[in-house]
């Protein structure tokens, strides 16, 4: 546990001295702001009160593109820099390394998400009698779980390469595959279609947390994806040793 925290806190601090991390965070907040503005205008024009969904919807899509940029360096940079040899010969277990990296990246993503809270708070001020607090809370809980899974997948992919650009595009590819996996649902029949829908990383969010419902099976789904990705990342480090 202690090693995980040592690794995570170093990683977390590292983001705050990295211009790339600031750039990614700034981009996410600016683009989210623009979409938020047009969504609120649209809601006013169509005469319905906007709720937290005007933030959550675009946030999910933006996370798809920003998370790989945050996670790509986690293990790949250690490979490139040669510091992997330092970590793998220190008295640290392989899973501690992977989980520590994940936790560092996850905490940074949580700090970005905390900043997007600005928009629901603002919305609460301009909408009478205020926004649905339950929807906001369940939405953000869902976003946090969704991000945990995204970061874990990012760490696992990062363990495969020493080139960060390769990690970025592969991670993005995995996310897109987990999004588009339910497209051929119709062609697969009832059972196959159900399985594909279950695999979809995004549906679990849209059908539950996004609607204001905290669904236990969705919570378990995201926690399982996170655990599985971290397990695969650990395996990948172990295989690297044996080669």
């Amino acid at each position, binding site marked *: 546990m202690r090693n995980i925290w040592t690794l995570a806190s170093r990683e977390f601090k590292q983001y705050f001295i990295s211009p790339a991390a600031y750039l990614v965070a700034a981009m996410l907040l600016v683009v989210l702001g623009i979409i938020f503005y047009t969504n609120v205008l649209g809601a006013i024009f169509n005469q319905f009160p906007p709720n937290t969904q005007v933030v959550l919807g675009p946030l999910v899509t933006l996370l798809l593109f920003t998370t790989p940029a945050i996670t790509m360096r986690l293990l790949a940079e250690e490979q490139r820099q040669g*510091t992997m*040899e330092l970590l793998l010969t220190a*008295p640290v277990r392989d899973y501690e390394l992977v989980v520590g990296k994940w936790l560092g990246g996850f905490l940074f993503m949580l700090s970005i998400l905390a900043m997007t809270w600005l928009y629901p708070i603002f919305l609460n001020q301009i909408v009478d009698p205020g926004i649905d607090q339950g929807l906001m809370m369940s939405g953000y809980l869902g976003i946090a779980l969704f991000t945990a899974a995204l970061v874990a997948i990012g760490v696992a992919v990062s363990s495969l390469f020493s080139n960060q650009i390769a990690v970025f595009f592969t991670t993005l590819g995995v996310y897109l595959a987990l999004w588009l996996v339910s497209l051929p649902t119709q062609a697969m029949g009832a059972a196959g279609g159900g399985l594909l829908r279950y695999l979809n990383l995004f549906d679990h969010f849209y059908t539950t947390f996004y609607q204001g419902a905290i669904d236990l099976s969705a919570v378990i789904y995201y926690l399982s994806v996170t655990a599985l990705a971290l397990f695969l990342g650990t395996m990948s480090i172990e295989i690297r040793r044996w*080669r």
Partner: protein
Amino acid sequence: MIQVEELTKDYGLRRAIDGISFHADKREILGFLGPNGAGKTTTMRVLTGYMPPTAGKASVAGFDVVEQSLEVRRRVGYMPETVPLYPDMTVYEYLKFMADLRHLQNAEDNIDDVLELVHMEDRADGYIVNLSKGLRQRVGLAQALLHQPEVLILDEPTIGLDPAQIHEVRNLIQELGRERTVLLSTHILSEAQQVCDRVLIINRGRIVAEDSPENLQSRIAGSQRIKLKVLGESEGLENILRQVPGVQKVIVNHPGGYEFETTPGMDARPEVARAVVSAGYELAELYPLSLSLEDIFLQLTRDEPNAPEMADVDDFSSDQLDL
């Protein structure tokens, strides 16, 4: 402290180390000597728990490197050839991070101690990115010493340093070797000769010789090689030299300059001097050339059948997919 038996490591089809066995005792400085690609780095990586061997057994400080890897890693200080540093951290932050990973109780004291040992107290708050090669090497050494390890494994500790720094690092290693076991690799023979208590010569994954530097030298240098120089006229001197008892293999380097070997156990120098002077030549120089470790090394590695072209195995990351 280090016990290695029949250790073998393959990279795919290529055998990097081939059934090597050796041991290192407490308070011994063991030198690992060999050309690039001989398997030095691979052996060290197995001993530090970085990668498991394909076959064979190795233990460090009484713990098996595969079964009890974490115990081994707790007791070993390792400095890889390319010193692994985080350029965007300060020296202090870096050492603190490593101290935390090793759960050191008095991290601050330990850091102050090692910084003093490598003479870098005044650079503690400097960023690693701004350090010269020599200073980075010292930070790497500080990192390896942080937890006062029983066993110190140093891969090419003096590579890329200037002569003054090399001297300093060698002295430091000798000092450290008084209390702990040191295994260091080098391809510089004079370094092994100066620093090590015992030398292992490794070539193409096999140990070709193992002894103290002095014994290795005397083992090969049973006969002495002597250099002779006369001033002015030197015609006919070669024949005179050949007639002196105990002189073998006379070589003429240039007019007036000769080299010859003596029969083992005989010092032919007084006889040679007398012969040269009494024949009327002007003797200018007469001194023994001792065979250096360099000659021994070449002699030992030359006997091997022609080595196939060796890929550089030092770079572990080069095998991986690089898009």
